[in-house]
């Protein structure tokens, strides 16, 4: 067989992680992006910078802080143990939480751009047509920002698939729980299993290319709006 069962398990885990993170970020990222696009608050700059931090921060730094926060003495750790969930590090859901932070800008920034591109006018028009602000969001802003949502989702998914440093810090390397594809490839290389590393790496290469191809092939269509 082309890939062995541990490789397939890693791929399945990676896809599951990326899908869950993308879904969570669609919900969490939307209000943040909306606020950043529409607000005139003086907190807009600082909040925007915080959201963008994972873009420039080394994943190991982000992972380190998240590890401390989720650890038994960190604020998230206190919360999770008080809720009876236990400690999050080295669990799948710990990985999900860390990835949500890590991929946040990849969801928020395209959405923010899409919301900003809509401008005030369509929202004002909707108001003069009796639509409440919430109604306006779902019936005007959301449909008009749909291309932005597609871009944001693809970028978030792909970025979550590609993470490595944060996974190692938070999730470690537990088969079926936290061992995602990027870690699996690392393992293969460490174990001098170059042919297996090759196959998995090729899968990632093809995947990444297809993602970008989708984005670029699709982009010209958005121009005519």
């Amino acid at each position, binding site marked *: 067989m082309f890939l062995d069962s541990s490789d397939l398990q890693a791929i399945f885990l990676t896809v599951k992680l990326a899908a869950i993170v993308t879904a969570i970020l669609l919900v969490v990222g939307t209000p943040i992006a909306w606020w950043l696009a529409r607000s005139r608050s003086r907190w807009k700059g600082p909040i925007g910078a915080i959201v963008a931090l994972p873009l420039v921060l080394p994943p190991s730094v982000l992972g380190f802080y998240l590890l401390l926060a989720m650890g038994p003495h960190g604020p998230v750790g206190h919360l999770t143990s008080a809720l009876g969930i236990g400690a999050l590090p080295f669990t799948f859901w710990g990985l999900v939480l860390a990835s949500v932070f890590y991929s946040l800008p990849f969801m928020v920034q395209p959405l923010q751009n899409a919301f900003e591109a809509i401008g005030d*006018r*369509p929202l*004002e*028009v*909707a*108001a*003069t*047509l*009796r*639509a*409440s*602000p919430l*109604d306006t969001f779902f*019936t*005007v802003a959301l*449909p*008009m920002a*749909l291309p932005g949502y597609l871009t944001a989702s693809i970028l978030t998914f792909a970025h979550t698939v590609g993470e490595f440093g944060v996974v190692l810090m938070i999730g470690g390397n537990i088969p079926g729980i936290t061992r995602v594809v990027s870690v699996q490839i690392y393992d293969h290389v460490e174990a001098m299993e170059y042919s297996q590393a090759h196959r998995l790496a090729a899968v990632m290469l093809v995947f990444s290319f297809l993602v970008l191809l989708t984005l670029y092939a699709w982009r010209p269509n958005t121009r*005519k*709006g």
Partner: protein
Amino acid sequence: MDRITARFHVNWPGFTLDLDLNLPGLGVTAIFGQSGSGKTTLLRCIAGLERAEGGFLSFNGEVWQDERTFLPTHKRPLGYVFQEASLFPHLSVIGNLRYGLTRSGVEQRVSLDHAIELLGIGALLERKPERLSGGERQRVGIARALAVSPRILLMDEPLAALDLARKQEILPYLERLRDELEIPILYVTHSPDEVGRLANYLVALEGGTVIAQGPLAETLARIDLPIRLGEERGVVLEGVVAERDEGWHLERVEFPGGSLWMRDRGAPLGHAVRVRIPSGGISLSRVPQQDSSILNTLSGVVEEIGDDDHPAHSLVRVKIGESVLLARITKRSVAALDLYPGLPVWAQIKSVAVAQ
């Protein structure tokens, strides 16, 4: 009668608005002024799109804004037409029309079919906005505003973004709205032609304050107000086509107090038309002129004499029956003819234009 009362005093950086208006609850009120005069801001304040702190606004006795109240835009029973049609790009024409309709509740003053018929957009319903011409887009925008069955229609320079041909395409529809809908229309414009053709009531703004307001014909004929539509001052008369002289291609337009022969524009008999008479196109005499090429000589009485902008000119208001003309003549002529209020005179009208 229903009325709109608006008091707005705003002092934003680089912009002030200081208005106290009491507008009629029917017909077209033109809010006229140059860009920067505050006319669009006034309309946006009335719509609730802009919030002028400390302002007051009531419509037919319902308070939309005071110290305690600020009715959000979506709860105000208005229709709004923006300068650019601003159709929703993700919806078809009919989708755009239904957007407001479905949210406007049970009260149907204007049916969707009526709005579609009024604006002549029946053939466009399935199209996407991107496949409409500029004029079609604006007609859909107007129909969309009507489909919410507004109790007042606010229009912000709806023709300004269109070329002359498109304007001529839409103006007749606007006249129909004025004549067929029983709701007030506030019409923001900087175009003298649109005021002359559409307005019943005029509010002229300059630098955020009202420099003149009143019924259109009356306000234009006031010597003490510096209101001009276009290059020179003049009045607008409302009349009907009363007679046609086919042989000479002329039509006679009857207005309260007299009638005027003018170039036949093909309007059917009985059709209402508006006629603009610029003050420079009128000469006055004490006796009727004979052997003149001038077709229209009306008898009237001098009401008031005042100064025009140039020291050589006077403005003379002449009452013709129930109507009023404004004639610009030289001060030397005023002296030579010895004109004074109460004197019967003959007004020779050289140029008459249908307002368009």
